[in-house]
């Protein structure tokens, strides 16, 4: 079996999309790992009302945990230098006005950039929305990190999402354990492949037809 990218490597690749001065909301799961790899000057937002929170409290310093400072994934964080605190009206104006980059996990992304990442159960009680819909619709850029296929090898990058949608036509970039794919008006453009994988092999694991970028290359970190 050929090697797929480790979770940390996916996070590193996603972090490469950020630069000094960017403000980013990191969703639950894999995206939170990006925090370890972002360049200096990137600031983190949580929709519950913090911008510029500091490092997370580590498991061996439980005594430092303070319920007043919780990150976007519900973990204890520290107040960062220059942090701002605000209410949800301000918070969602930040999100909806296109000032924040959003990095989230995904269950499925369609060829048009439709995103399904909140619900696998099919009805209103099958998942939790939180800020995901706002972040998908309003994000300055919406970057999805996820496994390229399901555990049993099924497609996650699909013609049409079968899970309930988070938002229509909202994803800009998909970073998986096999590839980096940009969502464009013409379709999905394969930009980078994991070391040792060919565009043809990626296509076989992707339901919609991929446009192979003329300069397609190995994933760069």
């Amino acid at each position, binding site marked *: 079996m050929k090697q797929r990218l480790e979770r940390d490597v996916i996070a590193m690749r996603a972090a490469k999309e950020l630069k000094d001065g960017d403000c980013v909301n990191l969703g639950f799961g894999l995206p939170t790992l990006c925090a370890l790899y972002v360049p200096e000057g990137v600031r983190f937002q949580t929709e519950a009302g913090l911008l510029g929170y500091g490092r997370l409290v*580590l498991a061996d310093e439980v005594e430092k945990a303070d*319920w007043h400072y919780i990150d976007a994934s519900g973990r204890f964080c520290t107040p960062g230098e220059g942090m701002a605190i605000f209410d949800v009206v301000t918070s*969602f104006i930040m999100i909806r006005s296109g000032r924040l980059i959003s990095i989230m996990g995904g269950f499925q992304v369609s060829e048009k950039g439709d995103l399904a990442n909140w619900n696998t159960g099919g009805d209103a009680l099958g998942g939790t929305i939180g800020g995901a819909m*706002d972040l998908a619709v309003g994000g300055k850029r919406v970057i999805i990190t996820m496994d390229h296929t399901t555990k049993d090898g099924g497609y996650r990058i699909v013609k049409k999402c079968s899970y309930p949608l988070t938002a229509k036509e909202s994803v800009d970039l998909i970073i998986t354990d096999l590839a980096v794919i940009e969502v464009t008006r013409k379709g999905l453009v394969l930009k980078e492949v994991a070391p040792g994988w060919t565009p043809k092999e990626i296509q076989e694991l992707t339901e919609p037809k991929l446009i192979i970028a003329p300069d397609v290359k190995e994933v760069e970190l």
Partner: protein
Amino acid sequence: MINKIFNSFDEAVADIPDGAVIAAECWGYPATAHNLIAAIRRKGIKNLTIITHCFIPQVFSDKYAMTPATLLPQIKKLITPIVGIMRLGAGDFVRPYVEQGLEVEIMGHGTLAARLYAGAAGLGGIYDPVGVGTLVEEGKEKRTINGKEYIFQEPLKPDYALLSGFKADKLGNLVYRGNYRSDQPIMAMAAKTTIAEVEQVVEVGDIDPEHVITPGIFIDRIVEIKPTDLGTKDKGQAIIQEITQVDSVKELLFGKKE
């Protein structure tokens, strides 16, 4: 000066009737008016509509916390962006109540904030791009404005809001701490009557006017939290000690070394 200070949580909620619409912030354990929720529970009023940021099962001991989900048997309708915890079966814990008639209305968190703003500001509702093409639009009017689709969302005007503040002066000028602020200022402004439990009540003039987050005009009743009540710093620490005994939970709440 009108006295807004109440001596007990039970007195502060005494007039809330059956069928009331109550906004109560909850962000996991934090930002929750634990004592006022406990008082509503003791009072046993029924057919409530609960508007909250986060409706998750009470995973903490009743000794330390009382989240909106503890009111489940008293609720007729739930309006929230978060029902349950994904890894714990999401909204499955409310299904038995849905079968008995509980209505659940879901939407994005920003939509909840905007609907509360609409309620507070007297708007007739909002046209919202968030939720288009999702389960949120079911049963709602849709409209295309300048080529873009929107969902009509009605304003939310709670009868009561239950807040958890840090410090209030006797006029009700209110300060929060950290992300306890969250949904609470807009809930305070949208509700007809707002009740706040706070860590500390101070004299008028003791809060720097530049630091007031919710002006006292929006706060009707204040109860000071005593050391024996819920929601104290000590009880918050006790919960941290309790939940960090479970490694899988600890992994979710804390960062990892590089």
